């Protein structure tokens, strides 16, 4: 008898602990709602209780920034030289020569395919008439990337060589990845003043972590015997590192270079919001503001072309390469020189080659015609999503249901009926033994009734803590609750909830549709053949560009932001779901088949559970992607933390910018840890 007790007790204990975490959350939610009339502070965190954290950060950081400002101004002055040179070189080089050089480089890197890509890409840039803006952007990238590479390699080497600081460095890199891009800019703005140097430095800082990560990873993955062979050859530590270990980590380092380039480009484009530099990002922003969508599409495509060329070119570095005939490269360059000489006098006038100039008009007309004929249905889609999904999620059924949208008014009576029905269902579910599920249903009902943005704060705090407990035990509970409490007392709570609502809605949508697409891609190679290049494409495009199409069809507003977030964040969900399901070990599937399972039984009973940890990692990535896009989407009208960061940038308000950036990073960090916790738990359960 005692034997059965000890066997069954851990299990029943586990069930009750998850259930009791849920029940406590539910209880707190109910108490808050019931007591709201007499104690409104139980729902809405009183402003008087908030600490002026933003102001403190502003003062403290401001003082610090002022202190280092003189040094930084020297740095910025120094950086202006290489930037000026790069700018001059790129702009003064006749375009036929530059195209020839890029084509030749493409040939050397990847043969005909890369050469053609480079030639067509730059030809397109020339054709759009954005040549000089494009060159300005590239100049920034070319100066910031070496800085980022140096910085990243240095950090990676430091973490590798000094094991004591490794964990700290990795934690910092983690945080840097979650801090939203805009948040980098405000302090830099204060340091360097308006101008391209801010974008340059922001992009160097932003692009360094991927390099550092890959350098560290690559070095750690170098075969132990190779390292030992270097030792036994009598190399000094420096020789071992630079002659053997770093080159042996080449592939991973090159992946780092690729990611570094892409991050730098992305940040340079984003930094355009500061303005003051006539680059392509600025052009997109400007034309978007003026609703010249044809122009912004063209400028956006220039960015996309740059991204693709840079990505594919640098991607070849990480592959085992063939060597291509150098004479062809020289020939190409010679052609470029000749063409430059022949067209001398006209080459500086790149505008004359803007053969796609009409295209902008065509796009504008087409969009105009499309919205004119389909405007009603577009509006319907938008309004439907807003009124029936997003708004209720945001402000709750009690406020979102109005006669002019839903046809009736949600009254207290409806609330009563709604809660009574929920209670009945919960009790029934609980009685059938699934107490945890009942608690979750109850919590969801509260969420629906009040809306995410008006959830009682104790309910959110305890709820997140409860999820933390189920996902990773007390330690995680403590961590997430402390982090969340920081946001709560910072006075940014309401905006944080707004951010949570929009990203939550987007992530949920991504999870459902991305999961389904991933499943489809896993079972059908044809589907994957179609979906894969789209995914590749979406992952190459800098965040900024996602705004153009949604804006074109749905104008400024939350729905456009919602769509942009989904378009960007759905990719990892698709990829990981597919990867997880497609890589189920065949012997597992055969074993299932041998027991007589049908295809879909095998899918649901074996493959999906087996893929669960991978899918959860995809979800994790999707969440992080959604958060980073959320901030960019502030440009086209979202409320919440993203908006605060953006406003802070406009007003050079370091305190608000950093506080809101930190709050955003905290939310991302919490989501990350919670999902990782579940993934870890699933992995353990599967014995992986």
């Amino acid at each position: 008898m005692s034997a059965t007790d000890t066997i069954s007790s851990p299990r029943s204990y586990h069930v009750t602990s998850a259930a009791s975490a849920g029940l406590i959350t539910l209880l707190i939610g109910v108490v808050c709602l019931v007591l709201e009339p007499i104690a409104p502070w139980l729902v809405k965190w009183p402003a008087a209780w908030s600490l002026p954290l933003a102001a403190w950060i502003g003062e403290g950081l401001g003082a610090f920034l002022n202190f280092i400002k003189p040094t930084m101004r020297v740095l910025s002055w120094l950086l202006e030289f290489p930037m000026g040179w790069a700018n001059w070189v790129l702009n003064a080089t006749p375009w036929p020569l530059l195209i020839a050089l890029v084509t030749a480089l493409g040939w050397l890197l990847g043969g005909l395919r890369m050469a053609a890509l480079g030639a067509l890409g730059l030809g397109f840039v020339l054709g759009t008439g954005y040549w000089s803006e494009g060159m300005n952007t590239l100049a920034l990238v070319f100066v910031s990337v070496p800085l980022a590479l140096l910085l990243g390699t240095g950090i990676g080497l430091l973490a590798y060589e000094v094991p004591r600081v490794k964990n700290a460095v990795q934690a910092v890199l983690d945080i840097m990845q979650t801090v939203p891009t805009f948040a980098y800019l405000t302090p830099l703005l204060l340091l360097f003043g308006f101008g391209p140097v801010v974008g340059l430095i922001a992009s160097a800082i932003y692009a360094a972590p991927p390099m550092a990560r890959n350098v560290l990873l690559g070095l750690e993955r170098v075969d132990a015997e190779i390292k030992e062979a270097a030792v036994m050859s009598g190399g000094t530590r420096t020789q071992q590192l630079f002659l053997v270990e770093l080159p042996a980590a080449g592939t991973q380092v090159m992946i780092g270079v690729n990611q570094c380039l892409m991050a730098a480009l992305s940040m340079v484009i984003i930094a355009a919001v500061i303005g003051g530099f006539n680059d392509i990002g600025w052009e997109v922003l400007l034309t978007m503001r003026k609703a010249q969508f044809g122009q912004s599409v063209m400028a956006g495509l220039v960015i996309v072309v740059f991204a693709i060329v840079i990505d594919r070119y640098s991607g070849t570095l990480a592959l085992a390469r063939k060597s291509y005939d150098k004479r062809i490269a020289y020939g190409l360059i010679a052609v470029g020189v000749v063409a430059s000489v022949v067209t001398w006098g006209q080459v500086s006038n790149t505008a004359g080659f803007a053969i796609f100039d009409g295209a902008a008009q065509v796009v504008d007309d087409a969009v105009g015609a499309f919205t004119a004929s389909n405007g009603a249905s577009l509006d319907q889609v938008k309004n439907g999503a807003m009124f029936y999904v997003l708004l209720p999620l945001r402000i709750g059924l009690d406020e979102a249901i109005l006669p002019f949208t839903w046809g009736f008014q949600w009254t207290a009576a409806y609330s009563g009926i709604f809660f009574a029905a929920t209670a009945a269902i919960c009790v029934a579910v609980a009685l059938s033994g699934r107490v945890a599920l009942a608690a979750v249903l109850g919590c969801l009902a509260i969420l629906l009734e009040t809306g995410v943005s008006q959830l009682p704060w104790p309910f959110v705090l305890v709820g997140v803590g409860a999820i933390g407990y189920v996902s990773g035990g007390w330690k995680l509970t403590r961590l997430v609750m402390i982090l969340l409490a920081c946001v709560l007392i910072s006075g940014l709570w309401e905006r944080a909830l707004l951010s949570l609502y929009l990203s939550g809605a987007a992530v949920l949508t991504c999870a459902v549709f991305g999961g389904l697409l991933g499943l489809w891609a896993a079972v059908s190679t044809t589907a994957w053949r179609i979906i894969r290049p789209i995914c590749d494409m979406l992952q190459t495009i800098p965040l900024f560009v996602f705004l153009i199409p949604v804006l074109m069809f749905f104008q400024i507003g939350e729905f456009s932001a919602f769509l942009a977030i989904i378009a960007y964040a759905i990719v990892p969900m698709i990829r990981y779901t597919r990867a997880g399901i497609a890589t189920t070990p065949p012997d597992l599937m055969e074993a299932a088949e041998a027991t007589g399972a049908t295809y879909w039984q095998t899918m649901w009973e074996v493959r999906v559970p087996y893929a669960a940890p991978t899918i959860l990692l995809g979800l994790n990535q999707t969440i992080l992607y959604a958060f980073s896009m959320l901030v960019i989407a502030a440009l086209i009208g979202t409320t919440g933390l993203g908006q605060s960061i953006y406003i802070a940038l406009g007003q050079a308000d370091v305190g608000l910018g950093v506080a809101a950036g930190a709050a955003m990073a905290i939310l991302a960090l919490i989501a990350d840890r919670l999902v990782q916790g579940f993934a870890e738990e699933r992995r353990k359960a599967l014995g992986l």
Partner: protein
Amino acid sequence: MKAFGNQSSTLPSTSSVADAIATSGLWQVFGAGAQEALAEQLKTGAASGDVASALQDRGLIPAVQDATFNVAPGELFVIMGLSGSGKSTLVRCISRLVEPTAGEVMIGGENILTASKKRMIEMRRNTLGMVFQHFGLFPHMSVIDNVAFPLKMNGVKPAARKARAAEVISMVGLEGREDAFPRELSGGQRQRVGIARSLAGNCDVWFLDEPFSALDPLIRRQLQDEFLNIQEKLKTSIVFITHDIAEALKLADRIAIMRDGRIVQIGTPTEIVLNPVDDYVREFSRDIPKGRHMTLAEVMEPFDGADATGPTLSTAMSLEAALADCAMTLDPVAVRDGDGKVVGQVRPEIFAKALARAE
């Protein structure tokens, strides 16, 4: 080598300055706080087995326990044992790729555990060579650059190191593949590069960690033969790891058998085969035809003067060879020593009994 090796059991086993390698009380314990835990345990003066199990109880891994042995100059010393018995760790301790937790390692009479960083680098450049189980070739360098790498570290001029590298490359039979990259070579070729690289620096002490295990039997045998040829020429002192008894018997002057971190027996191939100290060692040589490793000196009986004619048998002859020579006779056959003096005799029953005992 082999003939010399069979007598090497008579070499003094106490440490002397002349030894190429001498270790004493060498311990390697993995895990947090290993150093203190081991020191504490050793202070109690307990037997090494008890110390090891005490460490194990604390969650530490005593990968090498109290290893004491010495390798004479020019000797080919083989370390054998099952996977995970601590062979690689032992050799990594001797070459100081890992820092031993306790004990002493002398190479050419010099305590290398107290050597400075600079001195270590110097020794690795001039004295020590190592061949790795999975080759450990530098993937980004061509064959010749791999082989010349130790010379480059040593500051040898490009032309000179190229010449020397070409020389050792031809010694291992890889001429013509100098400009190939490791990924373009077969396993056997890669290991030749590994061997060439470790030879480039003219080492006196050569460590080989299962150099042939990753290769198929045919290539393995070929490389073993070439290896013996090279060793014949260079006369370096060698520590050779293997878990293949046939390889050990073929190459070794002496063999050390390791089990769970302990050296359980050190002896000549004959001793290992004929006088295993325990079942673990016996298990290793179970499938080895004993007749090949037993000499007549070990089985003969005193000569009773019956008949000194017949086939000529010598004391150093293996049982197998002797059997082939005198399988037809039922009479006792005389056995002579190196000088041709009759020192004993063998009879068919003796063969039968000896072989039965060995199995």
